[in-house]
């Protein structure tokens, strides 16, 4: 089931009541209850893939126990390799099998050799990219001795399957989330209240902004050859907000939901479109994934040590793999590579850690310089998003070619969602020092509740009739 569905609206209160009223007295029972409801949540899509999560959890749990007792470095490496091969193996099979088969066939076709297609009808299990990375982080941290392996199977399975972040992250580290399953949770009014506010804000972003932007994005991208350059630019803007509000909205709902149950989950988005350079953008966008790649790929490759070529190599590898993680299509690889190319100059010039704080802190209006920086960074990400959204590389280039036509200066069509986006950006700008727009909301009660009801009204009135899936479910 998805967060913005009627089923979840029934599911969440029932789970909340069961968690705090029925199973409160026993930590083990509470963890088992979490496992049960999380499996129910996941199985709602497709019960057949529950076995995959179960086996994945079991493999890494056993690998952890093995690493606990094993001191021999070679054998420890073999245990880690087991976890890596298993997790990346299932990810590779379910996500990339057909891609590689088709790419193989295409490659041979270019030299005149025709091969018979043996693609399988492989269904992509929802969330596989997220929970495999989550369990991998556990194995790697245990191997590195950053984390004591757990003997508590129920706590570990609850950590892996925890429903708020199971299917689309944030990709939580075991170091941060797993210990929260060892201790009894106490109901915290302030945490739960803020959790509800974050859920509301997440729903607003997803249903009002993302889903409405999606309708126009699809119309523009489906008919891009017939539209003006300015409309295509607007289409790219719509997609930028669609993917941001869709994904960050999901993360907000996940984090808010977790808080209802007494858990803290890492922040996943920190207002990335207010970034002043690409490096800052990547510190603010999909934080859980970018830090995962930093800690488990970039740094082991050497990170920023070594000569320029090594740094460039490491950076390009990480961004390319990050793009590939998103899906089995060359467009995602191109998107990742392009972002890597954006990043490299900053890194080589030592300017990739320049903008670390809140944009225009304590100022309502940004300076001209900051405005130019933000718009430039946003524009660069727009170009990259065209690749992300396009069906293939050819279409992406064609879209850009049509976009950068003389008509780019004309008045665009399909402006209906622009007012919503402008209002949204203004709200996020004014509240940019908070984790979410409704955090620490100190207005009088009547005014606060009026805001909540207005948000609910907008969600109801401006939501699309058909429930739209979250984009990142396909990853």
């Amino acid at each position: 089931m998805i967060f913005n569905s009627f089923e979840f609206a029934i599911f969440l209160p029932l789970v909340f009541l069961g968690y705090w009223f029925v199973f409160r007295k026993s930590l083990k029972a509470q963890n088992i209850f979490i496992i049960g409801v999380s499996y129910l949540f996941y199985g709602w899509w497709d019960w057949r893939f529950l076995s995959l999560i179960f086996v994945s959890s079991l493999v890494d749990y056993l690998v952890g126990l093995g690493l606990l007792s094993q001191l021999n470095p070679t054998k420890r490496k073999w245990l880690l390799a087991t976890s890596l091969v298993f997790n990346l193996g299932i990810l590779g099979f379910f996500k990339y099998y057909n891609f590689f088969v088709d790419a193989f066939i295409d490659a041979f076709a270019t030299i005149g050799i025709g091969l018979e297609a043996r693609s399988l009808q492989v269904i992509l299990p929802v969330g596989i990219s997220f929970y495999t990375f989550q369990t991998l982080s556990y194995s790697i941290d245990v191997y590195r001795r950053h984390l004591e392996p757990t003997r508590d199977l129920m706590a570990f399975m609850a950590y892996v399957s925890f429903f708020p972040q199971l299917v689309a992250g944030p990709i939580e580290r075991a170091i941060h989330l797993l210990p929260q399953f060892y201790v009894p949770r106490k109901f915290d009014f302030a945490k739960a209240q803020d959790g509800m506010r974050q859920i509301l804000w997440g729903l607003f972003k997803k249903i009002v902004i993302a889903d409405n932007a999606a309708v126009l994005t699809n119309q523009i991208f489906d008919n891009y050859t017939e539209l003006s350059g300015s409309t295509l630019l607007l289409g790219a803007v719509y997609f930028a907000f669609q993917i941001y509000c869709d994904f960050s909205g999901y993360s907000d709902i996940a984090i808010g939901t977790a808080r209802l149950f007494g858990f803290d989950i890492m922040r996943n988005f920190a207002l990335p479109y207010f970034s002043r350079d690409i490096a800052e953008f990547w510190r603010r966008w999909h934080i859980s994934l970018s830090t995962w790649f930093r800690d488990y790929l970039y740094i082991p490759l050497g990170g920023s040590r070594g000569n320029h070529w090594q740094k460039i190599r490491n950076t390009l590898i990480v961004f390319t793999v990050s793009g590939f993680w998103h899906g089995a299509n060359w467009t995602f690889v191109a998107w990742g590579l392009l972002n890597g190319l954006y990043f490299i100059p900053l890194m080589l010039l030592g300017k990739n850690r320049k903008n670390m704080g809140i944009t225009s802190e304590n100022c309502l209006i940004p300076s001209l310089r900051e405005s130019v920086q933000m718009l430039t960074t946003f524009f660069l990400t727009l170009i990259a998003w065209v690749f992300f959204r396009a069906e293939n590389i050819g279409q992406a280039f064609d879209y850009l070619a049509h976009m950068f036509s003389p008509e780019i200066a004309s008045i665009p069509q399909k402006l209906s969602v622009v007012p919503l986006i402008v209002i949204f950006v203004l709200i996020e700008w004014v509240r940019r020092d908070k984790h979410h727009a409704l955090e620490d909301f100190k207005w009088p009660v009547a005014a606060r509740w009026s805001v909540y009801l207005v948000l609910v009204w907008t969600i109801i009135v401006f939501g699309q009739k058909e429930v739209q899936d979250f984009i990142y479910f396909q990853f």
Partner: protein
Amino acid sequence: MNRFLFRILLFSLFFMALLVIIITGPYDRKFGYTYLGGDYIKSAWNYQRIFEDTNRIDVAFIGTSRTLNGIVDSLVAEHLNSICTAKVNAVNLGLKDIGSNLHYVVTKDLFEQKKPKLLVMEVREIESNHGHKYFSYIAQSNDILMAPWVINVNLISDIKNAVYSRAEYIRLYTGLSSEVPENLVHSSVYGFEENFESVDSVKFDKIIKNRNSRIVYRLPEILQNIGFRYSKIYLKKIVELANDHNCQVVFLYLPYHGAPVDKPMVSDFYQQFGPIWMTNEIFDQRELFVNPTHLGYAGAARLTQLVADSLARQLCPTTQALTVHNVRLPEIHYINEIQ
């Protein structure tokens, strides 16, 4: 925890109040009638015929697709006008899918806009235990909010659809909706639609078998009454409306071919309010059907002939102007006995 739950409860009350505000907020009935489109494009036609067409409606046929595909209102009008001294306008307002709540809404609009003399209500072998899925799109706000709560299996979906339809109207008004209702301009004053959804013989028999195996036929009467309660409430409301407007109601029995009963299971209920016109001789003939539940054109024409004959006797005695004879028979009235 108590403080948190209290706030959630309080917010829920505000939320429900907000839903009521949305449901009772600005809404265009034409939008509701015309929004559905597709298989329900007839709804847009109904709106135009009731609200925008200035011609009278003397006889209205209300029902489901069985009526829609079974009564050729142009033939009814032709027959009546050949007999009656005054012109009689007969209109088929049938709409796909079952639901007396929707029939009530349409009838209510009909009485507000026109002054029909006779209402011919479709009845079936069994009554429905649920409402029409698009009731909330067409109904006025007070009809949605005052709908029965008890044994209303559509309660939540009706509220959801009511909110969606009003929200969709606001979205259209603000330019955010990508779905624009079809702007139908009807070219005919008649509402009959021919059914072309024929099935082969094997499927024909399978459908009959599935329908006949429905558990409702084996339930004791008391449980049937519980299930039919929702529909009966709306049927009563329709009859009350008709009485308030001096309009007679007759029930036209339109079963599916091969139905296991030869009269409606709640015929006693219907007979409190008006006669039931039976048409067994039509519905026993398989060759008149395209599928078990819908007549083909030949079948529709035969049925229409029988109905038109009865209407003529009721509405237009040859030497008098258009009046309605108050014919209320205590028993089932067989059309084919009238010569």
